[in-house]
C-alpha cells in the first residue's frame, strides 16, 4: 500500500530512484575494487564531485517541496544549507584538536590568530558528533521556524516572501563575514583533518560520505513523497492553488506552510552538513544570494512540483556548469542567466515537463496539455 503510494504511482521518480540506487552500488565498487589502470575505474575526484552533486540534489529537493508544492519561493534556502554546513564545519574544526598550525588543543587556528583566550559558548559541544548531528537539524529548523512563523503569520507571500528570504541570507552572509562572529570570518572553516576518526582525505572516507549523501537523498525523497501523497500534501497543493478557499475550508494555512518550510530547511541543513566534509571548506560565500538563486534554477530546469525533477535539474545544471567552467572559467554567468530566461519563458515545466510533452506528442495525445500547464499559471494569483 505504502510502496504503491510512494513509488509505483510515480514512474519518473521510480526511475530516478533506481538510477540513484545503482550509482550508490556501482561507484564504490568501481572506485575501490577496480584498479586505476582500468577504463572502468572511477577516480576519487569523480566520487567527490558526484557526492557534491548528491548534496545539491538534496538541497534542490528541499526547495522543490516548498516551491513546487506550496508555491512558496524561498530565495534564501542556501542559508539553511550553509548553516548545516557550518554546524558540521564546527565539528570538523574541533576534531583537528592540537594538530592545527598553532597547536592549541582547544581553540581552532583562527581563534588563536585573533588572540581569543576561550572557546565561545556556542562552540561548546561541537566536539561530540551526536550533538553536532542534533544541531545540524535544529539550527536550520529553528531559524526556519522563527522566520516562517513571523512571515506566514502576517501572510507574507509570493514575491514579498522571496525578497525577504533573500535579505535573510544576505544579512547572514554579512554577519558571517565578521571575524567577531567566531566562525572564521572571511576564510570560514577549513583544513579539516578527520571525521568520526577517519581521515577526511582517505578514499574510503570519500566513498563513505558519498554513500551517506546518496542514502540521505533517497530517504529524503521518500519522506517528501510521503508528505505530498498524504492528505496534508493535497492541502498544501490547495494552498498553492487557492489559499483563501483553503482557509475558508477550515485549514490553518500558516501552520501547514510553517511545518513544510521547517522540514524543507532541515533537509537543506542536512545537505549542507554532508557537503562540507566532501569539499573540505565552508565559508560565508555559501550564504551568497546568488547561490540560493542558482538553486532555484536547478529546480526550475528540472521541473518543479515533481520532486524527482529537482534531482534531475540539480544534476544536469551542475554537470553543465562543471563542463562549461572547464572551458570558460569566467563566463559561467552568461549561460546561467540565459537558463533563467529560457526556463521561465519556454520551459515552465522544466526538463521533466519537456520529456512528458514529447512522449505525449508521440502518442498523439494532446488532451492533458491543459492540466500540466495549470499549476504553473496558478502560481501568480
Amino acid at each position, binding site marked *: 500500500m505504502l510502496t504503491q503510494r510512494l513509488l509505483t504511482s510515480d514512474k519518473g521518480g521510480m526511475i530516478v530512484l533506481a538510477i540513484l540506487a545503482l550509482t550508490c552500488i556501482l561507484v564504490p565498487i568501481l572506485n575501490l575494487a577496480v584498479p586505476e589502470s582500468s577504463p572502468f575505474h572511477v577516480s576519487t575526484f569523480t566520487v567527490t564531485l558526484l557526492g557534491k552533486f548528491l548534496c545539491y540534489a538534496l538541497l534542490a529537493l528541499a526547495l522543490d517541496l516548498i516551491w513546487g508544492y506550496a508555491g512558496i519561493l524561498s530565495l534564501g534556502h542556501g542559508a539553511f544549507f550553509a548553516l548545516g554546513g557550518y554546524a558540521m564545519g564546527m565539528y570538523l574544526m574541533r576534531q583537528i584538536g592540537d594538530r592545527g598550525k598553532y597547536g592549541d588543543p582547544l581553540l581552532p587556528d583562527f581563534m588563536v590568530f585573533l588572540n581569543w583566550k576561550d572557546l565561545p559558548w556556542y562552540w561548546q559541544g561541537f566536539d561530540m558528533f551526536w550533538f553536532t548531528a542534533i544541531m545540524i537539524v535544529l539550527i536550520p529548523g529553528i531559524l526556519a521556524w522563527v522566520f516562517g512563523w513571523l512571515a506566514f503569520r502576517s501572510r507574507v507571500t509570493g514575491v514579498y516572501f522571496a525578497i525577504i528570504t533573500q535579505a535573510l541570507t544576505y544579512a547572514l552572509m554579512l554577519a558571517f563575514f565578521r571575524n567577531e562572529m567566531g566562525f572564521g570570518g572571511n576564510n570560514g572553516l577549513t583544513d579539516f583533518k578527520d571525521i568520526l576518526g577517519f581521515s577526511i582525505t582517505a578514499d574510503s572516507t570519500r566513498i563513505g560520505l558519498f554513500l551517506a549523501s546518496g542514502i540521505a537523498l533517497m530517504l529524503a525523497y521518500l519522506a517528501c513523497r510521503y*508528505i505530498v501523497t*498524504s*492528505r*496534508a500534501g*493535497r*492541502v498544501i*497543493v*490547495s494552498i498553492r*492553488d*487557492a489559499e*483563501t*478557499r*483553503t*482557509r*475558508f*475550508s*477550515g*485549514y*490553518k*494555512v500558516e*501552520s*501547514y506552510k510553517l*511545518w513544510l518550510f521547517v522540514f524543507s530547511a532541515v533537509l537543506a541543513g542536512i545537505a549542507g552538513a554532508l557537503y562540507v566534509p566532501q569539499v573540505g571548506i565552508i565559508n560565508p560565500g555559501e550564504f551568497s544570494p546568488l547561490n540560493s538563486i542558482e538553486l532555484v534554477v536547478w529546480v526550475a530546469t528540472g521541473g518543479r512540483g515533481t520532486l524527482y525533477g529537482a534531482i534531475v535539474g540539480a544534476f544536469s545544471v551542475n554537470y553543465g556548469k562543471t563542463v562549461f567552467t572547464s572551458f570558460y572559467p569566467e563566463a559561467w554567468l552568461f549561460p546561467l542567466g540565459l537558463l533563467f530566461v529560457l526556463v521561465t519563458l519556454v520551459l515552465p515545466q522544466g526538463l521533466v515537463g519537456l520529456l512528458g510533452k514529447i512522449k505525449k506528442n508521440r502518442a498523439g495525445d494532446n488532451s492533458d496539455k*491543459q*492540466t500540466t500547464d*495549470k*499549476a504553473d499559471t*496558478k502560481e501568480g494569483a
Partner: protein
Amino acid sequence: MNPIKHARNWGSRALPKKDPNFGHPLDTSHGPILYVEDVSVSFDGFKALNNLNLYIDEGELRCIIGPNGAGKTTMMDVITGKTKPDAGSVYFGQQINLLELSEHQIARGGIGRKFQKPTVYEALSVYENLELATAGDKRFWSTLTRGLNGEQKDRISEVMETIGLTDSVRNDAGNLSHGQKQWLEIGMLLMQSPRVLLVDEPVAGMTGEETERTAELLTSLAGKHSVIVVEHDMAFVRSIAREVTVLHQGSVLAEGTMDKVQNDPKVIEVYLGE
C-alpha cells in the same frame, strides 16, 4: 444603537472563546444563530458597511439583495473573518464572538462560505476536493499521518449525491462545467457540516436548467442549515426566498417578504435611481 435589537445574553460576553471548535455548544436559545450588530467598515474613507444590523435565525433561508457597492460581499468578509470591522460586533449564537477568531477557526466552527467566483481546486479530482473540505481534525500532523475514516467517506458519497456529481468523482475539478463547479463548491461547504452557509451569487453564469437545480438544492438545505444567499438575479430570489433583506450603502434598507420589499417605496427608489 438600533432600537429593534434582539435580546441577547450580554452577560456571557467576557468568556474566553479561543478554542478552534469553540469548546462549548452553540447557544441559539434566543432564536438567531448569527448576530451582526452596528457593524461599520470603511476603506480609505469609503464606507462599505455603515451601522449594519442583521439577524439570521437557525434553519432560515435568507436572501440578501442590493445594488452594486451595497456592501454584500464586505458583509460576508466580516462574518467569515476576512475583514475586521472598524466598529460593531458579530456573534455566532449567544456566546461566540466571531471577531476574535481567524478564518479557519470560523470555518471549523460551522460557518461555510461560497465565493462569487467559483473557487475549487482545479488540479485535484472532485473526490479530493470534497475530501479536503471534510469536517474533522484539520491540523497538519493529523492530515499527514491519517486518511479519512469510513464515516467521513460515507459522508463524501452522500454529498456527491446531493450535488449530483457522483459520475464525475475521479474527474479533475478543472474540467467541470461552470455550473458543476458551483455545485462542487456548495458540496465542499456541506462537507464542513456547517451551521451557517454563506452563498455569494450561486447562479451567476448558469443556464436556466442549472439555476433551477441550484434553487432546489438551496431550498433543500434550509432547515438543516441556515442559508444566506446573496444574489442579483431577482427571478431566482423570488423562487427561493422566504425572507429578503435589501442592503443599500452599507446598511439595511428594508427587510421582509419579497412582496413587501418590492413594494417598499425606498427600495423602488434605489433600484429605479440606479
